[in-house]
């Protein structure tokens, strides 16, 4: 390179400086490792995340928080409590009782997996665990309905109690379906929204049916 022949760096000027590029905003998590924090903090952080998602389900707005930071703790807790509450203590020998614990568990998880697979096969852009997370969290209104039904059944099991239970279950079923549709609908291709929403409707309908037909022994 002929033009550069006369460029030289004098050897007595030291070259110094910072090589690291400063990052704009450092999130506090990177400053310390979570291994050293007290156990209470770890648990509270997860509990707060779960609690925040419960609030999101009860007041469904189009927020992406539920989708972005998915977790399956909430669905597990809801599923186990729903399955426990559906045990009527039907310990007698009648075969055709209500659903067993394992049946409720399998229906909820297997149903959620099938619906997720269905929406992905139809071309949805949501990830597998995000969809499971949403479907699991939206069981919350139905768990509340189950609780209310059990309390109403403690008071009596006549026609009035049946009407109250019917109204509560139908309202919570509508809430669950609308909440999950609000979260999941955007990630579906536009011509196929109904194809994706219908299985969700069927899923919550089956759970509502199990709740409504619960009869204590």
């Amino acid at each position, binding site marked *: 390179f002929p033009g550069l022949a006369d460029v030289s760096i004098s050897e007595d000027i030291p070259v110094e400086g910072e090589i690291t590029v400063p990052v704009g905003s450092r999130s506090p998590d990177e400053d310390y490792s979570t291994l050293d924090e007290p156990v209470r903090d770890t648990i509270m952080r997860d509990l707060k995340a779960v609690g925040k998602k419960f609030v999101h389900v009860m007041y469904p707005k189009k927020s992406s928080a539920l989708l972005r930071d998915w977790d399956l703790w909430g669905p597990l807790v809801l599923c186990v409590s729903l399955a426990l509450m559906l045990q009527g203590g039907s310990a007698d020998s009648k075969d055709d*009782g209500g659903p067993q614990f394992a049946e409720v568990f399998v229906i909820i998880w297997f149903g959620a997996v099938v619906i997720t697979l269905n929406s992905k096969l139809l071309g949805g852009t949501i990830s597998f665990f995000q969809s499971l997370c949403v479907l699991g969290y939206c069981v919350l209104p139905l768990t509340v309905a189950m609780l209310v039904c059990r309390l109403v059944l403690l008071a009596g099991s006549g026609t009035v109690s049946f009407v109250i239970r019917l109204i509560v279950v139908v309202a919570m079923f509508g809430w669950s379906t609308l909440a999950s549709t609000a979260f999941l609908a955007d990630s579906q291709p536009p011509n*196929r929204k109904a194809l994706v929403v219908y299985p969700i409707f*069927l899923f919550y309908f089956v759970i509502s049916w199990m709740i409504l037909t619960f*009869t204590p022994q």
Partner: protein
Amino acid sequence: VASLVMYLFAEFDDAANLLAANPDATTISIDEPVEIPKNQHGRLQEPGREEDDELLGTNDSDKTELLAGQKKSAPFWTFEYYQTFFDVDTYQVLDRIKGSVFPVPGKNFVRLYIRSNPDLYGPFWICATLVFTIAVSGNLSNFFIHLGKPTYHYVPEFRKVSIAATTIYAYAWLVPLALWGFLMWRNSKVMNIVSYSFLEIVCVYGYSLFIYIPTAILWIIPQKVVRWVLVMFSLCLSGSVLVMTFWPAVRDDNRRIALATVGTVVLLHALLAVGCLAYFFDAPELDFPAPIIPAHNGTTVITKSQ
């Protein structure tokens, strides 16, 4: 208006099949570009064009016809392979359901609606809906029938859901498998013009089960006559769709075998309906005033086997 269809390529076999199956069908030429937007939900063309579209399939399936060679080329262990079986829009599914409930005489369900784009969405979810509908309706119907009886205690009968699921999914998948195997075997002996792939047969069977969903809901009415009229009616509708689909496939065969095949198809369909009715729905009993229950065998007086 009857003029021959001349597609650019890859349609000649299909046209021959169409003409062989329905020699007096009207076929209409389409000579405009195929680029019509996908959301033709309302089909905003004139009524004449609607019929053309229905006869020859929508433009999506035109594209898939043209790409038929490249359609299912993904290897079977990838996710994309299974996505090709769910390549349907809402309006296509609704059209297929409509076609299974209102059979058009002379038109073949597979040729008309499936058009080389068989989907698994319809069969799977129609079967799932049917399972739960039968279980729920059966439970409700038994509840209403036994409502006033003092010895009756309501149980949700959840076991029956798994039995219903096994039966219906077995019918919707094993019977098409057997039928497909049989048709392939006959095809090797007698050259049939019309032959169906396994998925097309599954599709026809799946969509033909749709009529049983409203039938199962109406079976809650505890009248024997009503129930049997419903069975006959739904059997006629969906049975005729099946017959019109499979008759062209066996027509060129030995007469007796053709009739036996179609007869078996209808018989199995009838058996499913009658079996579900008998197992999940208790027989409605005649009313008579509840007798004073004696100490030992009061309940045996009431139950009357029908």
